[in-house]
């Protein structure tokens, strides 16, 4: 199995021994180019200056230029290997993703307008629902346990500056 350890390292993820999908390289490269361009334009708007008297924009613009270059290499590499078999990734996990993101958003919103307890309940309950094996009852029980931890450990013992409940 370990005929070629370097190959295992190269592959990025050890569990994944299949050829990488062309799309991943291509889109990854494009993403890096876009971010790099953003940095270059941002840097230009902050004053580039000269080599001996650098303005705040010099470094971001330089980093951005390098990003565009590396991004182009990555994307070109992705295009070149078009014939290679693609990666079979598991299907998108929308439920899990939505619940994790939703849970954190709930923490922010409920924390702002409700306080620590509703925020805690929200993040644990909603994100727990993201796992297909959790039932509503399970998730609620876990959320209640989370509230107790928040109250006892964070609010009471560690004196977290976050009111348990707030009205406004």
């Amino acid at each position, binding site marked *: 199995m370990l005929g070629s350890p370097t190959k295992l390292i190269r592959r990025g993820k050890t569990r994944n021994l299949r050829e990488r999908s062309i799309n991943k390289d291509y889109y990854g490269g494009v993403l890096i180019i876009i971010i790099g361009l953003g940095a270059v334009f941002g840097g230009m708007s902050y004053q580039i200056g000269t080599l001996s008297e650098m303005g705040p924009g010099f470094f971001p613009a330089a980093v951005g230029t390098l990003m565009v270059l590396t991004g182009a290499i990555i994307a070109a590499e992705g295009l070149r290997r078009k014939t290679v078999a693609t990666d079979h990734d598991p299907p998108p996990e929308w439920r899990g*993703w939505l619940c994790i993101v939703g849970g954190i958003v709930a923490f922010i919103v409920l924390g702002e307008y409700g306080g620590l307890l509703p925020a805690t309940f929200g993040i644990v309950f909603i994100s727990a629902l993201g796992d297909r094996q959790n039932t509503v009852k399970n998730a609620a029980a876990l959320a209640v346990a989370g509230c107790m931890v928040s109250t006892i450990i964070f609010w009471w013992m560690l004196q977290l500056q976050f009111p348990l409940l707030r009205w406004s």
Partner: protein
Amino acid sequence: MIEQSLASLWYGFGVAFEPHNLMWSIFGIVVGNLMGVLPGLGAMAAMSILLPLTYAMSPVAAVLMLAGIFYGSMYGGAISAILLNLPVHPPHAVACLDGYPLTMKGRGGAVLGIAMVASFFAASIGILVMIFFSPLLVKVAFKFGAAELFSVMLLGLVAGSTMSKGSPVKGIAVTLFGLLLGIVGTDANTGAMRFTFGMPGLEDGINLIALAMGLFGVGEFLLHVNRMKVVGSGLKMRLRDMRPTRDEARRSFFPMIRGTLVGLFFGALPGTGPTITTFVAYALENKVAKNPEKFGHGAIEGVASPEAASHSKTQVDFIPTMTLGIPGDEVMALMLGALLIQGIQPGPQLIVSHPDIFWGLIASFWVGNLLLLVLNMPLISIWVKLLQAPYRYLFPSALLFIAIGCYSANNSLFEVGEVLVLGIVGAVLIYLDFSVATVLLGFVLGPMMEQNFRRALLLSHGDLFTFVEHPISAGFIAATALLIAAQILVFIWKGKRKTLEQPA
């Protein structure tokens, strides 16, 4: 010189045994050990979740706790790799190859015993190297000016991004992205706001905790939700099972020493990740073994050597972090960040101005490694039970800790929003096969690199040759160029081989 080091070490033990420091050290070790065992959490997640706690601590206690988490989780990672074939922590992926087959043969306990002894031995050697080489390196480091600092950081970044996991070009690209993230906020020289998008919360830059938790916590959860296979098995482990046979001990001895040396070598190279170290150690054992066909089917040599390598490397990694202020990998970057939060600038002056941190840390390594050896034996049966804790309870609870941890950084919900955005960014990057670990390296080094780059060119009146005119700096630049050239050669060679194999 040596007496002085020993005297300082003695002082360090005094610091490490202060009840307050010892308590946090033990706390870190136990929590790290626990998080290391659990699938889906690792050293980085554990350290970032507990980083907010350090705000209220003294700098010494903070560093000791973080270090404890780190090596505690390394021991823990070995446990889940060997007993359950779970390569959740990449450096321990090799331990699965031979550790798990041995577990299937009923020798799991003995393998763990060997792994722990090898780890302890290697860590001790690494600590010795650290004690005697750090003061030497400090002497050199005092000669460093802006040009040298910039060049050595460049070398570290290039080595870190090209030699860790995945494609080298992608590694460089994400490291640059990390540098860019480090730029966000107020420019130290001119006070100009850069990439803040008009948000006052970003004026002080992106929060290190939010970045670490986003990339290594939220990002990982997004990828693992509903995809984590829980490997429950009725594994039972008793203390008695952990004693290896005489033959097993004999066969592990030299691999352990070779592994330690491999670790020392890679530790001295800046930027090389722990994963490559363990793979090289494994490959080396495979080469020198009399019976290489046994590898992959339960050769104890294949566990002893990589485990030793990862631990000696870990210790040696602390040298550049503490003496030059230049972290070798993402764990060290986080450690450096924690020191910076405390208002302490690691660098050559650290040993002199904060001897308690430096020598206390070294002494605590020994105390901690010994504690782990003692703790792990009785705790293993508990860890094995915990391994069966379902992920569906684990990640919502961890998410709560992350949210509260980020909030406590500034007592504001803005950081929680940051962690969400950075988590999504991290998940996208991981999905596109970028290794996000170097983002953190770039983030921590970014501001320092920019400062030194600007200062060096200000002093040389804009002459770029200043980086090759200073001899030390020229050496680092040459090493960097060599690394890049080597990568290009490997790339060309591989391309040729591929076309030979499959003419298309």
